[in-house]
């Protein structure tokens, strides 16, 4: 028993007992990785990764590279926000990449223009009724398809007690099949101008950071967030406390599905086309962002801020390898090692905490 505090009834706030937020460790890892790339860059490239080395005085940063780093992780980052919540409940979502593929095809079919440079749209999926629709239609269709996929995942996991790994593995195969069946493997192209705006420029980044802020608040300051952590931490205790665990899990998976659907809308808008192979292995990258960001695969621990920093770590590594002109092979090898390292570190910290208690 520690009795170093003064007063009775636990009224003191003992600062020495304060816990070190895990996000700071993840942030330290990000800074360390940046420093490594800066040193390697200075030695081998005579350049800096993030800082402007040219003789300009308007900025100290290399803005173009910063922009690339965040744009390339923004879309998968949106998926990772949902995956983070799923993993905190001690679940997993393997289907998000395929759901992106299926949603991309279906949503894009409702975003097509009637005429391409004077002649009828050669890629039109439906008849004239589905062409030149207001932009809200494909967006709602995209969110809807994602939510239906999430609803099926959630129902299987929460009510029929199929393990999340199996349920979402099934959805992963099924949704990829839907993506290929939808237009028999043909791409769906030529969206309306309004639809093309969604994913243009820095919009994906703005949407990603806005949603990150929203879900940061939701996870930390609402009943939904508290119950999500409680279920992942001790499902029996959550049930004993009167939380409707199945209904809550259903909601978590529906939100994850909606975010995957939104990611598909942004991705197709950015690329101006939808292909059945879209989103391939996005689920694994999203899980990697969460895990690198300190979300525990055993549930109960992790945060949205951690996942955002985890996404930035992946972005910096990807950009850094391009910057050093190293092949993509090395990049994936290093990412693999970092993921295993992050989980090993988490395990080690848990063991140490258990030994202290």
């Amino acid at each position: 028993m520690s009795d170093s505090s003064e007063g009775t009834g636990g009224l003191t706030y003992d600062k020495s007992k304060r816990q070190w937020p895990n996000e700071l460790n993840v942030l330290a890892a990000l800074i360390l990785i940046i420093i490594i790339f800066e040193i390697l860059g200075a030695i081998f490239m005579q350049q800096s990764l993030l800082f402007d080395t040219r003789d300009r005085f308007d900025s100290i940063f290399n803005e173009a590279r910063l922009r690339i780093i965040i744009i390339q992780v923004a879309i998968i980052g949106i998926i990772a926000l949902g995956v983070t919540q799923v993993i905190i409940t001690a679940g997993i979502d393997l289907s998000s990449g395929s759901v992106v593929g299926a949603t991309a095809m279906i949503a894009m079919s409702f975003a097509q223009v009637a005429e391409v440079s004077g002649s009828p749209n050669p890629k039109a999926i439906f008849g004239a009724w589905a062409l030149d629709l207001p932009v809200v239609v494909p967006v709602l269709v995209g969110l809807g398809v994602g939510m239906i996929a999430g609803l099926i995942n959630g129902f299987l996991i929460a009510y029929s007690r199929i393990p999340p790994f199996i349920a979402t593995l099934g959805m992963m195969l099924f949704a990829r099949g839907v993506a290929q069946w939808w237009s028999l493997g043909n791409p769906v192209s030529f969206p309306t101008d309004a639809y093309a705006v969604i994913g243009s420029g820095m919009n994906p980044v703005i949407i990603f950071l806005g949603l990150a802020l929203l879900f940061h608040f939701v996870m930390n300051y609402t009943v939904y967030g508290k119950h999500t952590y409680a279920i992942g931490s001790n499902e029996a205790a959550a049930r004993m406390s009167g939380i409707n665990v199945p209904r809550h899990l259903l909601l978590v998976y529906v939100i994850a599905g909606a975010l995957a659907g939104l990611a598909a809308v942004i991705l197709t808008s950015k690329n101006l086309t939808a292909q059945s192979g879209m989103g391939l292995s996005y689920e694994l990258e999203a899980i990697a962002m969460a895990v690198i960001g300190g979300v525990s695969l055993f549930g109960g621990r992790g945060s949205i801020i951690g996942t955002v920093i985890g996404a930035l770590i992946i972005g910096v590594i990807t950009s850094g390898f391009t910057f050093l002109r190293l092949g993509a092979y090395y990049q994936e090898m290093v990412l693999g090692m970092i993921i295993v390292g992050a989980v090993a570190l988490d395990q080690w910290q848990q063991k140490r905490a258990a030994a202290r208690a």
Partner: protein
Amino acid sequence: MSDYILETKGLTKHYGGVHALEDANFTLERGEHVAIMGDNGAGKSTFVRQITGVEQRTRGTVVFDKEEVSFAGPLDAREAGIETVFQTLALADDLNVPDNLFLGREKTKWNWLGPFRRLDYKAMRDDTMAGLVKTGVKIPNIRNTIANMSGGQRQCVAIARTATFASKLTIMDEPTAALGVQETAQVENIIRTLKEQGESLILVSHNMRQVFDLVDRIIVFRRGRMVANLRVEDTNGEDVVSYITGAKTGAEFEGAA
């Protein structure tokens, strides 16, 4: 007619052919502390499970706070005012003290947001502090997660729930079984505090010294039946042991076992 907080008549539980609990007639006065003793498998935990709604009884009636009750689950019992400290602590390791105390019954603002209604952290912290002061539980920092706490502190958190939610009856199932000497003493102090505050308590325990120290009355179960109802001042350890082992049976329970 005494002021009973809890009364059971003919409470019976069969698991298929196994008669785990047979015809238990039990009373508990408001503010009274009663211990339930007995060998393993004597029916102590079965008795507690019928009262707290964890299981559904085969036969008999339960009257709680002057009303006949039939709880569908532990949650119903809790809402009615029966707070149970389980052998396996129902705490979420990754949450802190107020979060655990208020789990499933959070204080909230912005309730129109449904499941996304906002937590009122300050109100929950204040209530937690008040509950801890009331029970004399000492926890260095309530913002620490349960995972970083000792077994004794965890047990104290579980017990502090009862004080925070003005319950009418507290049931503790072997609260000190897994604790060290110092931590046991701390838990016992909390139980004494509850007594001073007039909280009714059922304590399931194997620890003879603890029982004689803390309660007013001892009920002994043997092979699914109540075999003794003893006031602590009229009995001693040796006497209780002979009831537990079956060497003696209380006069009013003759023919029962």
